[in-house]
């Protein structure tokens, strides 16, 4: 990967971390994606704008940003000001951005979005273009019936869809090994007959390369693909969760494998000066702080913003 491209990925990971760090400070109930940025950016920065992105909930805010939503509008989904693109109607992390082809996380049930991605892929194929659908999921989601049904559907109909498992090795407190039979989630996917591979999810270059290859495979009509990116949830399930249930030494090993630090070592080896890398973080943090200040000055949503007449698309059907 050329240095300019890696710098672009690094800057996006820095932005993801700045946004998540801000959100987890704002709410102890936030589900942080800190430490999982290589999977997020390695996946979601590799698509065309006409590809439909269906992200897993953890870390999803960066996806609309990668498609051009401003930092302020990203944070407005969280702070629930009147300018929020979702009008405060969806939990901030789940906002999506349908106009930019980013699927919201509408139901808290894990799994239905995998079927949604397959349906999008079917529609895309009907429309005879070469756009694809890409959906990510957690390792926990892989235990659902919807996961297995969607893998089967995508494979049996040769749909242009890529699934990316953001495997952070914990379903809340349960390690993957204690909840999932079989060798790996990628192995499950491969048994459905789709091209599947496992990559180091803390190496943004490796994730990007795997996603690039599979998207091209899928785009050329050769059926669905699957990437399992192995990472680790270095935080609790939510901000205030001390994660006392897990192996501290294991967490320390993964913290030492921080994906942003790894990218910085690679960039340093290629001659990028340390102050320039630090500047990427400072720039991201400054943008987040400025957006947060701007939003704090905006009017909060009130009961008058409920929008009870906006439930149905066809005005004639409104009760």
């Amino acid at each position, binding site marked *: 990967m050329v240095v300019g491209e890696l710098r672009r990925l690094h800057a996006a990971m820095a932005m993801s971390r700045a946004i998540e760090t801000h959100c987890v400070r704002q709410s102890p109930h936030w589900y942080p994606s800190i430490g999982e940025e290589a999977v997020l950016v390695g996946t979601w920065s590799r698509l065309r704008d006409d590809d439909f992105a269906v992200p897993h909930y953890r870390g999803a805010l960066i996806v609309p940003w990668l498609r051009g939503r401003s930092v302020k509008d990203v944070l407005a989904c969280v702070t629930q000001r009147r300018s929020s693109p979702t009008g405060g109607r*969806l939990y901030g992390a789940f906002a999506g951005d*349908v106009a930019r082809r980013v699927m919201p996380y*509408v*139901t808290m*049930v894990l799994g239905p979005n995998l079927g949604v991605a*397959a*349906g*999008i892929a079917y529609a895309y194929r009907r*429309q005879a273009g070469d756009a694809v659908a890409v959906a990510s999921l957690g390792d926990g989601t892989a235990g659902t019936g919807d996961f297995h049904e969607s893998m089967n559907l995508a494979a049996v109909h040769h749909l242009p869809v890529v699934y990316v498992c953001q495997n952070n090795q914990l379903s809340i407190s349960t390690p993957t090994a204690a909840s999932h039979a079989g060798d790996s989630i990628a192995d499950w996917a491969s048994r459905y007959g789709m091209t599947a591979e496992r990559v180091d999810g803390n190496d943004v270059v490796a994730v990007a390369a795997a996603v690039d290859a599979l998207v091209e495979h899928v785009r050329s009509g050769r059926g669905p693909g699957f990437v399992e990116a192995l990472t680790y949830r270095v935080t609790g399930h939510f901000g205030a969760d001390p994660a006392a249930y897990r192996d501290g030494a294991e967490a320390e090993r993964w913290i030492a494998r921080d994906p942003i630090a790894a990218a910085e070592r690679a960039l340093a080896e290629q001659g990028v000066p340390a102050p320039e890398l630090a500047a990427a973080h400072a720039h991201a943090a400054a943008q987040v702080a400025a957006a947060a200040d701007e939003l704090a000055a905006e009017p909060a949503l009130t009961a008058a913003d409920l929008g009870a007449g906006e439930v149905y698309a066809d005005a004639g059907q409104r009760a």
Partner: protein
Amino acid sequence: MPVSAPELRAGARSTMREAILAGIAAEMRRDESVVVIGQDVRAFEGPLKSTAGLWREFGDGRVLEMPICESTMTAFGVGAALAGLRPVVDIMFSDLLPIATTPLIQLAAPLHYYTGGAASVPMVVRTRGGDGPYRAHPQNYEALFAHSPGLVVVAPSNASDAHGLIRSAIRSDDPVLFLENIFLYNAYREPLPADEHLVPLGRARIARAGRDVTVVAYGRTVRTSLSAAERLADEHVEAEIVDLRTVTPLDADTVAASVARTGRLLVVHEAWATGGIGAEVIAHVSRSCFAALKTAPALIGAPAVPVPWAEPLRDALLPTADAIAAACRRLCENGDG
């Protein structure tokens, strides 16, 4: 040997099944984005021949065979709808609706509102249920879905309405649950209008005018209520039958206007009375036009008993014309005029 998808012919008499199928086929001819998704919808021609002829006419690309996965196939329909298609998802029978509840009530229904109008879900989920000649698949779950803002729930009572409603449902930008009553499916033939026939969603119909008592019904019980009304007419009691057609959003105006004329209200449905559509209709009338009521409203629905299998037990759940006529007589004994 598969038949071709039915076309409307002037003067032809259709069953409800044929009328719905002709409506889907007409919309598929009119709009390339309309597709059918379901289990056994190709060579088997759908449960109770619900998709007969569509595969032959429209081919693999527009009639998609699904594995048995009602939940995922409904989510799949949502995705297809978001990406520009107008899917008609065929869920074989109403017994299977509970497993598709998550994508229906937590994904399709709220999506338009949650996205501030950026997304809509032009999807129809059709299924068939209610006690019928095969005595199978008797569940009536409409109240579960009527309770979910963002869904439209349709339950036609006759072939002509069924045809016009399925066409409107396919053209609607909202998700529509379309309930096809098995008792009515093949039992009656009626002429369909030859022209492009659309019945608006969300609008009830006065199936029979009458001055003495309003009977609100939908699906199969409209026909039962009309039979009861004929008997009552011999006794000089004129029942007005309101066919809701769309169960939700409720056409409260048409119901209230009828009650304003008659002053008496009976609601009849095959589904459980507890927490059902009838309770909703009565609550609405009680709130909005209590002063028009000459006597307390009445409700006939299934008792709060799981639907049993043996036919004599099952029969005990069904609203009969006798029961409807008796309830109307009791209402008319109360209140002056």
